């Protein structure tokens, strides 16, 4: 029996973007179905329609054989559909428990908060991870927030579970745990729709896969019957070589020196506890670690956004500890944050976002030169293949991946001396990922120093010349990439000194 049957789905967004052009999409009951596609292919749009959050412009949706017309997610939820979004949908100012309670109320209006607590604890035990139920969501690291999302979906006893790029913020260990859970769910007859860019994951976990390209279905296959290469070709219509050629590093002078850095997190607890390291020109220093071990606070402190309790930061031989972020950027630092909500002003146009960290360079006296800004914008769009109709489009109308490209491109294009990047390929498709990684390497080859913060160990191992592992605000180990194996990294990240 078909769990989901979507026929000839069209979706035109109010601003005229045609996101889906007659998509047929079916999911069989009890399978794990992969949904694959480049950035902006329409994956999220399709799923938001299935979840009743938006309405299709045209087309028909059936769930377990019944034709449905959802007026909102609550209808979908009652029909047994749950969705974990790419951008989380938790109330940031509520506690975890309040969030869970809120979502449970849709299914069972009479449930009490204590029952929810009990249920949540049971589910956490089942899945094998736990989250602090009484913490306010926005104070939690993104990885933990995602766990909340998954627990939330599971508690809803969903028969169909949609996961929109669930692994992009998880560590390999967490991904394994998640996959175990998914398999367990499958055993229980739950249907899973799994959106990802990662071909390896498709191969590993899904039964069937649908590939979308620019709003159209370009292929449906049993996963077993296709290779990663085939999938990649389908997705981007070209050959992909996901291998970064990298010459050995030739590090030069120290460009960033950090001495005994102490930083507090938003709740006022020590998050970075006496970190020291050096970054040299012409090298990539990877910082590995599970989300929430102080990487974010470290990056922000280096960028000048977060107050430093103690310590010293030296940029290109100059003490910048007291400088504000814009001054550090001007002095040759670039920082790509892990959240697009921070790195971009979503209500501004593309070109206005292009100059966010680059204001001094487009100033003519006290005047902003929009001609110059547009030129830079065009260059970014071209070089990074950003899918956008015009530079004056509000950036919020770009797909997540394209937003990411603007954010990374903006920093790279201004040729900084030191680049701090946090999850630079999060949510990017393979083509773009490849492009950005290559760019980072070539920047290194041009003699820039790059601090790469990533939870993606493949990325860390592939790009870094040296690696530092952070655990609970401290650097557990630091050394040449050759000194680390995947396994050793995994242990260090878990706090085990190997």
């Amino acid at each position, binding site marked *: 029996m078909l769990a989901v049957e979507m026929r000839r789905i069209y979706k035109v967004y*109010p601003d005229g973007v045609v996101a889906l052009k007659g998509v047929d999409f079916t999911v069989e009951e009890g399978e794990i179905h992969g949904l694959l596609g480049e950035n902006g292919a329409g994956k999220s749009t399709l799923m938001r329609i299935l979840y009743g959050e938006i309405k299709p412009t045209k087309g028909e949706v059936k769930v377990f054989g019944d034709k449905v017309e959802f007026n909102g997610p609550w209808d979908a939820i009652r029909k047994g559909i749950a969705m974990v979004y790419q951008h989380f949908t938790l109330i940031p100012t509520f506690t975890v428990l309040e969030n869970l309670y809120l979502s449970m109320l849709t299914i069972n209006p009479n449930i009490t908060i204590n029952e929810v607590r009990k249920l949540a604890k049971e589910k956490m035990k089942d899945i094998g991870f736990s989250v602090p139920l009484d913490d306010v969501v926005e104070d939690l690291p993104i990885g933990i927030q995602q766990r909340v999302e998954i627990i939330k979906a599971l508690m809803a006893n969903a028969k169909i579970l949609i996961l929109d790029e669930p692994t992009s913020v998880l560590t390999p260990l967490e991904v394994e745990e998640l996959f175990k859970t998914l398999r367990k769910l499958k055993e229980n007859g739950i249907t899973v729709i799994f959106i990802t860019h990662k071909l390896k994951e498709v191969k590993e976990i899904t039964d069937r896969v649908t590939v979308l390209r620019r709003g159209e279905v370009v292929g449906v296959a049993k996963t077993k019957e296709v290779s990663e290469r085939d999938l990649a070709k389908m997705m981007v219509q070209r050959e992909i070589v996901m291998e970064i050629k990298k010459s050995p590093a030739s590090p030069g002078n120290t460009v960033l020196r950090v001495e005994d850095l102490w930083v507090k997190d938003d709740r006022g607890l020590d998050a970075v506890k006496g970190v020291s390291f050096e970054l040299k020109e012409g090298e990539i220093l990877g910082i590995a670690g599970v989300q929430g071990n102080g990487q974010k606070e470290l990056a922000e402190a280096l*960028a*000048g*956004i977060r107050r430093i309790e103690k310590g010293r930061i030296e940029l290109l031989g100059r003490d910048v500890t007291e400088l*504000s*972020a*814009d*001054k*550090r*950027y001007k002095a040759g630092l670039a*920082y790509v*944050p892990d959240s697009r*909500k*921070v*790195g*971009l*002003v*979503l*209500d*501004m*146009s593309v*070109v*206005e976002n292009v*100059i*966010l*960290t680059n*204001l001094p360079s487009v*100033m003519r006296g*006290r*005047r*902003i030169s*929009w001609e110059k800004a547009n030129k830079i914008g065009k260059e970014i769009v071209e070089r990074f293949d950003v899918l956008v109709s*015009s*530079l*004056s489009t509000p950036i919020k109308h770009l797909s997540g991946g394209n937003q990411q490209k603007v954010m990374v491109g903006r920093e790279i294009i201004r040729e900084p001396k030191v680049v701090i990047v946090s999850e630079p390929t999060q949510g990017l498709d393979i083509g773009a990922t490849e492009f950005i990684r290559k760019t980072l390497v070539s920047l290194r080859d041009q003699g820039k120093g790059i601090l790469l913060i990533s939870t993606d160990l493949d990325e860390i191992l592939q790009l870094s010349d040296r690696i530092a592992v952070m655990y609970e605000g401290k650097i557990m180990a630091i050394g040449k990439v050759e000194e680390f194996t995947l396994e050793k990294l995994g242990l260090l990240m878990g706090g085990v000194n190997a």
Partner: protein
Amino acid sequence: MLKGEEKISKVTEVLLSVFMAFTVGAVALLILGYHPGEVYYILFKYGYSNLNYLLNKSTPLIMTGLAFSIPAIAGVFNIGGESQLYIGAFLGLLTAYYTGNSILALIVGALSGGLLGLFVGALRVYRGINEVITAIMVNWIFYYLIAYLIAAKFYNPEVSHESIPVPPEARIGSIGGVSLIFLLAVLFAIFYYYLLYFTDVGYKLRVSGLSPASAKYAGFDPSKAIVISMFLGGVAAGLGGVLLILGITYSIDDTLTAIYGLGFTGIGIGLLGRNNPIGIIFSSIFLSGLLIGGQWVELKTRAPPELADTLIGVIVLALAIPYAYKMLIKKFTEGRK
């Protein structure tokens, strides 16, 4: 930076808004038992024909509109245009009286308004006090304070119900039939437009208002934006006060009729102008015309003066929903395709 097509639909949107507003207004008039044709005829004939009056009337409103909108862009709700205008008007008046120098009066008025705005902004930033409370309280405090000062200290011995007057040499008249104060207000609005969209300060304000987290990331201080925008807003209101005094009323009466209410009207003006300084010039002229015309509707039709309030209320309500019109236009154009 809008493309041709977008520009056209923006214009249709505005036109449709205004058309709908007057249609709804007409329905309201019919319900109330008045003849919409007659009322609108009088409203437009008298509201927009006396140019000097119209432009003078819209002058302080442009300024209080800006006083609301500039902080709004930076994410602050400045409901304090009222008191910022009072203080500008009052101190501008004193300066003009004692020095006879209109330029100096303009500067003092603008700065005093700006400082009062800054005070509200600073309380928000450094003490965390919501600007709505501060502004409402400050409005009343200054209302009574100035009422006191005019009644007891700075009254005109010749006309005991009025403050000391602006001396003739400090008054601002008109050139070529166009009132100079209006020109000043327009120049000022253009200056603010330029500031917002073509300078770093404006850009930082806008980023801070839309996304404080992004502002921090970019190294702009959102708190600074609040304080700066409140200062700029206060300057506008303060200047509006002086322009009113130097160009129109030349004194403040001891019931404060001359200066009361302009700040509140400015909120509507700013929003109807979509928080855009150029839009504010137009929304201010538009609303001023309605206000002026409303008085003549009373004279010519014997309708109570509150008919104009009702009509303006209905029109403003109908102008509050551009999104609905946008959807309407879209449905219409799609239907045709």
